[in-house]
């Protein structure tokens, strides 16, 4: 899909404080839907899914004192578009010491778009073990799904045009917290 | 056929007219002479190559006497000396006469066979040198080229023996024990490429030994394809002492260096190997000084499969006849007296070819090369007349086009094209 040019006009959708509130809300929803987040593991999809997973775990701990194990799941080798782009460097795959077998895995990513990354993550997960169930948490759902995939927890739905892109920045990886919509504006 | 070359510059001198009548150069052309507008063209005595591989008999898929002769004529040559490493080896009167006759039949250049020094080039036993000298081919140069006459006693005998008929031994100077498995010049590049080195000293040691032998027995020695700065020094000292030694250098050793091996393309594999920039500079100076007497092509055609392979499996050698003069021109510029001496007069003298290497004066045989020094051309292997394609100069833009070549008054090349 064509990316907007780097100098394309953009606007901020979520500022830092909004983003924190959205993470808090997802943490609450997880606690609610999983009856206190027991038997649950958060796996962040690199790059930005990983710090998001850690933030969710920290918020869950702050709200209810529950320690939710956090890991990362790199999907690069499972992507279906590897050959469409130059070779990508690999991200880290690190499972919590307790593994994932028999547990509820919540995949965490920044943006849900075509659904292909999640498909790759499900494949990667299958090679790592057998969770009892898998759920998906995303900061932003921008629509345009190409696969029958939906998120269980959505921070914010942002209707977009295909010509636009959504850029999530996090302090851990980008130095600041914000979500920006790029391109498509006149 | 008589020709009148109008406005030609003889060896770069002021334009004049040059007439060719009945195979000799004449003061006056008859009225029916074919007039060639030679404005801007330079006339040289027909080029003579003392080191050519024509591959016939044995490897007619790489070259024949006829295709090699055509390549020679197109390169401006009127005589070539064909090396003995054919199959069978030119080590008997029968084989040298066969080659000589094939040359006559082709009729494009004088093909002067070189006889082998030893039977089968094996370096063990002298071939019948006298029989080859007395044959119709009238052999005067003997060489095991491709192999060195490494045995010092055998070399001494050969040098002595050929004095009886004013022969000369042309030595391929390569101490074989120092070059076992050698693939390229031994130095930085061979170390980097992991190819077995051919050390300069393997050439220099043999030349040093041979000039001493030649001095000792009072014989003539000719050194093939000198390739190193060290060899030049050995030759310089020997000549200063009055040793009767002559030496040749190839166009490729005057231009190309071992760095070209970096891509492992065997088109740059040759024996002796391409050397360093320092060697190239020394060879150029030696040719200017006369320490090296002649430019010889070492034209070595090879079939495609012998070059389109791994470097170590490829045969060594490069085409040279059709590019020699342009390469020399590109290296030295329009030094016509030098070019005439090193590419025609001196080689004819070494080879004993009395009809060649003249001074283009009236009454001398009309062996003439007509060059357009201002024309440039790009070397396209597919366009070459040789049956083989192994030129290291592919794609190179070179100065100097051969417009016409005359062999005893007959045009073998006209308008840049072979007449037959």
């Amino acid at each position, binding site marked *: 899909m064509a990316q907007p040019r780097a100098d394309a006009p953009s606007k901020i959708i979520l500022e830092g404080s909004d983003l924190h509130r959205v993470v808090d809300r997802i943490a609450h929803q997880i606690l609610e839907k999983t009856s206190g987040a027991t038997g649950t593991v958060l796996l962040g999809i690199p790059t930005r899914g990983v710090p998001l997973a850690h933030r969710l775990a920290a918020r869950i701990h702050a709200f209810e004192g529950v320690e939710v194990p956090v890991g990362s799941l*790199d999907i*690069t*080798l*499972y992507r279906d578009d*590897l*050959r*469409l*782009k*130059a*070779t*990508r*460097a*690999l*991200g*880290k*795959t*690190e499972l919590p010491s307790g593994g994932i077998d028999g547990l509820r895995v919540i995949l965490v990513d920044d943006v849900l778009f075509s659904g292909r990354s999640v498909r790759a993550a499900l*494949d990667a997960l*299958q*090679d*790592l*073990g057998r969770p009892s169930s898998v759920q998906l948490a995303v900061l932003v759902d921008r629509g345009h799904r190409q696969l029958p995939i939906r998120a269980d927890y959505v921070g914010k739905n942002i209707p977009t045009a295909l010509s636009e892109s959504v850029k999530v920045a996090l302090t851990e990886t980008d130095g600041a917290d914000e979500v920006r919509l790029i391109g498509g504006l006149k | 056929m008589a020709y009148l070359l109008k406005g030609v510059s003889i060896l770069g001198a002021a334009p004049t007219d040059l007439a060719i009548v009945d195979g000799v150069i004449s003061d006056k052309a008859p009225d029916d002479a074919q007039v060639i507008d030679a404005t801007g063209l330079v006339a040289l005595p027909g080029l003579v190559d003392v080191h050519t591989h024509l591959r016939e008999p044995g490897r007619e898929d790489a070259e024949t006497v006829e295709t090699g002769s055509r390549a020679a004529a197109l390169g401006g040559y009127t005589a070539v000396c064909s090396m003995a490493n054919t199959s069978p080896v030119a080590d008997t009167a029968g084989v040298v006469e066969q080659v000589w006759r094939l040359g006559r039949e082709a009729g494009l250049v004088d093909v002067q066979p070189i006889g082998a020094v030893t039977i089968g080039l094996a370096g063990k036993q002298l071939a019948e040198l006298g029989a080859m000298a007395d044959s119709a081919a009238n052999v005067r140069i003997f060489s095991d080229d491709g192999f060195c006459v490494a045995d010092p006693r055998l070399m001494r005998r050969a040098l002595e023996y050929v004095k009886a008929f004013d022969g000369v031994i042309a030595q391929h100077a390569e101490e074989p024990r120092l070059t076992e498995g050698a*693939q390229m010049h*031994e*130095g*930085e*590049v*061979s*170390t*980097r*490429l*992991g*190819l*077995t*080195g051919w050390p300069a000293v393997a050439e220099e040691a043999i030349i040093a030994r041979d000039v001493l032998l030649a001095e000792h027995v009072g014989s003539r020695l000719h050194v093939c394809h000198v390739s190193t700065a060290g060899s030049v020094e050995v030759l310089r000292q020997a000549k200063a002492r009055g040793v009767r030694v002559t030496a040749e250098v190839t166009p490729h050793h005057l231009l190309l260096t071992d760095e070209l091996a970096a*891509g*492992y*393309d065997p088109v740059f594999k040759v024996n002796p190997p391409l050397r360093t920039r320092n060697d190239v500079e020394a060879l150029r100076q030696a040719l200017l000084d006369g320490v090296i007497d002649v430019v010889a092509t070492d034209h070595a055609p090879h079939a495609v*499969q012998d070059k*389109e*392979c*791994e*470097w*170590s*499996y490829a045969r060594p050698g490069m085409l040279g006849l059709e590019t020699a003069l342009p390469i020399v021109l590109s290296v030295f510029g329009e030094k016509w007296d030098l070019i005439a001496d090193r590419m025609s007069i001196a080689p004819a003298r070494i080879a004993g070819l009395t009809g060649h290497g003249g001074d283009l004066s009236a009454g001398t045989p009309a062996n003439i090369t007509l060059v357009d020094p201002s024309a440039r051309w790009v070397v396209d292997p597919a366009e070459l007349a040789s049956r083989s394609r192994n030129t290291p100069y592919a794609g190179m833009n070179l100065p100097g086009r051969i417009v016409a070549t005359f062999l005893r008054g007959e045009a073998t090349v006209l308008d840049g094209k072979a007449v037959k």
Partner: protein
Amino acid sequence: MIKHLRSAADLDAATATLILDTAAEMAALSGREVKKLPALRGRTVVNLFYEDSTRTRISFEAAAKRLSADVINFSAKGSSVSKGESLKDTALTLQAMGADAVVIRHPASGAPHRLAEWVDGSVVNAGDGTHEHPTQALLDAYTMRSRLGRLDGLKVAIVGDVLHSRVARSNVLLLTTLGAQVTVVGPPTLIPLDTAAALAEKTQVSYDLDAVLPDSDVVMMLRVQTERMQDSYFPSAREYSRRYGLDMRRMRRLPEHAIVMHPGPMNRGMEIAPEVADSPRSTIVEQVANGVSVRMAVLYLLLGGK
């Protein structure tokens, strides 16, 4: 990313580091139950081996298969190669078969360079003559980095028949690129002329192993073939071993943390004493295991993208 891996000189520091980092991820993934990864599904990797080298071939084969590539083994024995087919004709055959990568082991230096001119796919040099063996150097560098934590500033002694060693050439180039200080050690007959000028400016040459050992973080022993003796490179196996072999006495001269490497196969008792090869400092078994991860990284980085 580069297209071919013909020489360690094809790699700049960033690319070499990317390969090592990727290999580390591959190693982590190799520890799990399902070892297969789908990244190279539908890609064809040909192992074209003109020399017997079961360990290298198996290592590449395992690497390609773990990435789900189809692997075709094309060995000189029992194929048209032994019937005298030229490398070029073989290349055209592989091309017609749609090889995405050709891993080539060949007795002639530079064969991978030639092959790269005749096939569209990537060419990986798995050892060519006395030239190079870049994936061996990568796995050696990987092993050093995992044991010692860094490569920059590391002092590495490469000992033995440097002249005929493709492992040495690739290691000098790669390790220097990654900031290590390499000293080649051996009898002068087995150290090529102009080593530093030819390979890497900073390379040092020594003929005295005992002098080099106390200041080495890594000592890499090269295989020395006894037939070199016949060619007068050294007088006898005994003298070679005495002057350049690594025995327990010499190993004690090494700093506490230093490691001992050997690309294999070893001549125990010649260049390396059995108790040295089996000591905890020896990384010889690790090197083999790391070979698969490094080759996975190379294949992935060459073939994984567009």
